[in-house]
């Protein structure tokens, strides 16, 4: 167990594992996402009230789900950075932050597109939307602080502190629809309860959420590999690797 933990701290070891893992993540994710989206967008039954416009949830819910989930993952990694000073944890935070920001933006954007025909407005300052907007700002802050500090170690720890401070927003987002009486409906998608929608809608939604998770994993691995190559560019294994690729 501890040996595994120590190995995980080694960029070289992670680089190898990621290379082997990435095809699985990419193709698994693409397959699931494709199946979920095609099923959801083309074959799932119409909603009796909203007609076809509800179908955007097959993009909206997975991206919103991931947007919060990525932040929680980053917060866990930030804790690891502060406690064990593990370099890879910081590499993950730096790699995941822009992806998280894009997912948050996607969730807000698809929400707006859906809100226009359903609520009659692109944007409303209700609790869920506002807290997601704050999440987007937090991602921007993390990216900006990471870029502003040139020293690698200080940058890692400063960003970790900021990510951990921002984590207070996550429960606010999650429970905003339950604490306040808002326009945004309560969570559509829960793994712990019996779904309130028919199975033909729920299963494709589940597939797209899982697919997006895998795609995120692939993307995170890719970005982490890039970051590792940049940081370890002076080490022998990176030089050998690059030379082998070049030939």
């Amino acid at each position, binding site marked *: 167990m501890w040996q595994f933990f120590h190995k995980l701290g080694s960029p070289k070891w992670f680089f190898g594992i990621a290379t082997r893992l990435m095809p699985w993540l990419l193709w698994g994710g693409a397959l699931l996402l494709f199946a979920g989206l095609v099923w959801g967008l083309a074959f799932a039954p119409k909603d009796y009230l909203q007609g076809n416009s509800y179908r955007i949830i097959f993009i909206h819910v997975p991206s919103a789900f991931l947007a919060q989930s990525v932040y929680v993952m980053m917060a866990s990694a930030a804790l690891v950075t502060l406690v064990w000073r593990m370099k890879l944890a910081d590499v993950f935070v730096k790699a995941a932050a822009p992806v998280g920001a894009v997912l948050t933006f996607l969730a807000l954007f698809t929400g707006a597109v859906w809100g226009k025909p359903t609520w009659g407005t692109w944007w409303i300052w209700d609790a869920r939307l506002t807290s997601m907007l704050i999440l987007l700002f937090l991602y921007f802050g993390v990216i900006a602080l990471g870029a502003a500090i040139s020293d690698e170690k200080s940058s890692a720890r400063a960003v970790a*502190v900021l990510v951990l401070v921002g984590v207070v927003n996550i429960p606010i987002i999650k429970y905003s629809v339950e604490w306040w009486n808002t326009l945004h409906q309560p969570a559509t998608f829960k793994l712990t309860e019996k779904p309130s929608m028919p199975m033909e809608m729920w299963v494709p939604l589940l597939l797209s959420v899982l697919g997006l998770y895998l795609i995120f994993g692939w993307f995170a691995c890719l970005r982490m590999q890039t970051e590792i190559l940049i940081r370890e560019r002076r080490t022998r294994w990176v030089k050998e690797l690059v030379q082998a690729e070049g030939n």
Partner: protein
Amino acid sequence: MASDARVRLRLAHEAIGVLPAMKAVFLRDLKTAFRQRQDLLNPLLFFVMVVSLFPLGVSPEVSFLQQAGSGILWVAALLSVLLSLDHLFRHDFDDGTLEQLVLQPQPLFLLVLAKTLAHWVLTGLPLVLLAPLLGVMVHLDGNSIAVLCLTLLIGTPVLSLIGAIGAALTLGLRSAGVLLSLLIIPLYIPVLIFGTGTVAAATDGAPVGGYMALLGAFLVLALTLAPFASAAALRISLSNS
């Protein structure tokens, strides 16, 4: 070994207690601040000027100002606290005082708490005292002004405490000012929402107890957790320089 232990014991005796140390830091910050009076006045002037922009820039109608007044005052107070945060650690960072504070035997987070409280007394408290005057200028009624001052009294310490984290994180960076705002504003939004929500409820004649309790909860949360984050951030920034 024995002499080592004795030395440590003597050091522990010579070190002053935690509370006297906090008091010393607090009073020192007040004293140095009063030697630079203009720096104390600037955030207040900024507060007054920003508030006066709204009637001129948006609408001087009494009905608009009554509705938006509390929000305007809160946003202006928030911005002036934000602008003053840069001073919180900057001077002490430049002249090396901060390094001495980190080396003290007393826990750093308590010394940081003392510094933050001094910052609040120097910026937040004057804003609260100035708020009734500006409240009258934006046509708030007496009850709303009283509630507004109370929310600012509970809310501005939260702003100082959260802001200290950002000030500590951006210490010694280029273009720290803009970055500081970028990091801190998202964390200020909940305080702003509940601060203005309280006054809006009071204007509508609704009970404000629940809102006040939530603001109080923010204060307790910030008071207990923010100093730890600020202290950690200070250590990081100092190891960077």
